[in-house]
């Protein structure tokens, strides 16, 4: 019995190796010609004029449209443009899944997605693989309308690869019944927190911690990679200072030990249970917390304070609209993007769906200010926000940050050792491209 089993396994393995050999031949024939130049040279540039005469069909791919604003935009576009139809393909809600779904299609050179709603951190990775149209001529024509920080998130290698659609920036939530005003510095906030019920943030080992850590590190004057994008700068005195500050915060009781396992929702739950004086979180919590009996009417939001001896900083979130180079109808996709990012549409998204606008003028609108009571704080937060490191290997850089920072927060490594390890890992990742 076991002999026959062994034979079968060997046969299967032999088969596998045979298939592998064949597969190898096919593919090396097919893609051997891909260019190996360093940057984004030779990328296709969008033809802005093609927009005027665009007709036919195009598909826009996006993560699940949970709020419904995208479906409404598409419906209105199709109504306003007889003869052209935009279709929507929805990917799962999880950001990583959206990334993988789009990547798979692009690797196969599939025309499935004419346009895609990307997370701000994917620009470099996609542009480097020449999956996106260079949108610089279009952005040039509208440059002054956008908040400058949001344009940074579509820029890589000196060119613009997409159009910002919705933005996001972290806010500091505080209990008005426990503190009179937000202190000017993070150090002050932590002091108040230690006296009160503490501060909660996203300290679990995932993308959210990269954001939370960089908010402090950037404010302290730190950076992640060098300007040429070729080497890591994570192991700097400023970054160590920021990390030491977070570690001390947990030691001194300004933040509960449990923050090392918190993502957005656990932090919000702890905050809404009245167990924290401060919370660092995204704007989406505002409306939800107004319905939580224990904190309702007892809190306000503020943009982040500065780091002692440093400055103010925040990290930009949000989504951009990009056009795939494998699209059969890039002109129509651009026309749709132009429609979806228009001032009128932006206002509707803010008022009806609480989406943070990327256009300056939208924040000044009276209706928007009424719908988003914290519009002014939000605009400040977005304006002072910086992009996360722009690099084709961003996922690995982020992992190096959140894993090691988390180890420092949970006391398994000293801040110096943690950042040294992150430094090695980031340099190793940067060498792969």
């Amino acid at each position, binding site marked *: 019995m*076991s002999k026959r089993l062994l034979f079968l*396994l060997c046969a*299967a393995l032999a*088969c596998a190796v045979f298939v592998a050999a064949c597969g190898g031949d096919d593919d090396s024939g097919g893609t051997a010609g891909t260019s190996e130049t360093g940057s984004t040279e030779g990328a296709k540039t969008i033809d802005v004029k093609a927009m005027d005469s665009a007709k036919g069909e195009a598909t826009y791919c996006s993560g699940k449209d949970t709020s419904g604003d995208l479906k409404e935009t598409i419906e209105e576009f199709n109504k306003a443009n007889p003869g052209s139809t935009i279709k929507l393909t929805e990917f799962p809600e999880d950001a990583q899944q959206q990334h993988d779904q789009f990547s798979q299609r692009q690797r196969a050179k599939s025309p499935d997605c004419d346009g895609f709603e990307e997370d701000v951190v994917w620009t470099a990775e996609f542009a480097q693989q020449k999956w996106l149209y260079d949108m610089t001529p279009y952005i040039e024509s509208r440059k002054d309308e956008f908040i400058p920080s949001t344009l940074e998130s579509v820029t890589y290698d000196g060119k613009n690869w997409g159009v910002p659609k919705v933005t996001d920036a972290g806010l500091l939530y505080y209990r008005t019944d426990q503190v009179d005003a937000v202190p000017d510095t993070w150090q002050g906030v932590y002091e108040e927190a230690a006296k009160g019920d503490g501060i909660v943030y996203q300290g679990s*080992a995932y993308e959210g911690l990269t954001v939370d850590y960089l908010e402090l590190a950037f404010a302290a004057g730190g950076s992640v990679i060098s300007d040429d994008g070729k080497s890591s700068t994570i192991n700097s005195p400023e970054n160590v200072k920021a990390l030491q500050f977070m570690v001390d915060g947990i030691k001194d009781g300004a933040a509960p030990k449990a923050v090392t*396992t918190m993502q957005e929702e656990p932090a919000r739950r702890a905050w809404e249970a009245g167990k924290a004086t401060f919370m660092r979180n995204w704007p989406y919590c505002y409306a939800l917390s107004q319905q939580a009996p224990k904190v309702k009417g007892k809190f306000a939001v503020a943009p982040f304070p500065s780091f002692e001896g440093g400055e103010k900083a925040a990290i930009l979130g949000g989504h951009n609209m990009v056009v795939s180079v494998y699209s059969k109808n890039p002109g129509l996709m651009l026309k749709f993007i132009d429609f979806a990012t228009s001032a009128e549409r932006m206002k509707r998204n803010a008022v009806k769906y609480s989406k943070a606008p990327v256009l300056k003028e939208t924040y000044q609108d009276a209706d928007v200010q009424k719908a988003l009571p914290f519009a002014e704080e939000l605009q400040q937060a977005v304006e002072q926000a910086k992009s996360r490191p722009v690099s*084709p*290997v961003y*996922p690995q850089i982020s992992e190096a940050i959140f894993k090691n920072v988390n180890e420092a927060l949970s006391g398994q490594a000293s801040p110096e050792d943690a950042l040294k390890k992150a430094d090695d890992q980031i340099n190793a990742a940067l060498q792969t491209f």
Partner: protein
Amino acid sequence: MEAASVPAGTSTKRRSRDLSERRLASYMVSPSVLLIALVAAYPIGYAVWLSLHQYSVRQAGLSRWAEPNIWSNYTNVLQDDEFRQAIVNTFVFTFFSVGLELVIGLGMALAMHAAFRGQGLLRTVVLVPWAVLTVVTAIMWRTIFDPTLGIVNAALGTDIVWLGETPYAMIVMIIADVWKTAPFMALLILAGLQVIPGEIYEAAKVDGATMWQRFRKITLPLLMPAILVALIFRTLDALRIFDLPFVLTKGQNNTNTMSLESYQTFTANNILGEGAAMAIITFVIVMIVSFLYIRFVGGNIRGLADE
């Protein structure tokens, strides 16, 4: 003469008919063998092929053999501290979770086997955890062990961040796994218990064997085949554990496993070659472990049966 040749003739005839029948049979199964080859061998083959290649975002496309030699994805992965740690974690998890499941599962099976009122109800209740999805199990235990709102800290009066500290995170993961799969173990062992004939016990009782002797000398040896099957199933499952650490810890605090590390490398970090190499190494480790089981524990069974 004749009497001797006739049987010889029929036996060759029968053999040749056997052969042609066998050939016919092999023709008839060939479509399904082909299908299995396509469904099973192709993905494995593709993974092997990927694991020998290099993919980087700068040089889009997957046409290059790994450099400096075609095995370098494997050597890189085996030198990688994170993956080594993942291998260690996986074995720690497998050893403790399968060990506990065996003991608890055996106890459950014996309880379910005993005849008493409410036996049907007990069997149903015991099996409930097995029916719950692993991801749901993980979310449930994550909530139970939540440091601020969870019941464990409240009940024990402790202030431990269960999923955020090193030995505790693994302990929670093992508890969640044991809770979920001990019933499965119990089910397989119960099936083994039910085929042991009652007469053997009666004979042993007549001979004056104590309860412990009956368990040691009759139940355990006769149960061995069922236990072995259960152990193989559970060990192979545990070695591939992915969903529990994915939901509970994302691999932090020494709970990273081979499958999770492979997934992270392959999909999140886009290092397709090394991710595939990790998957193949996991595959080979699982295969070696199952061979060892059959070779050593399987041999024992035969020995016990002969006794």
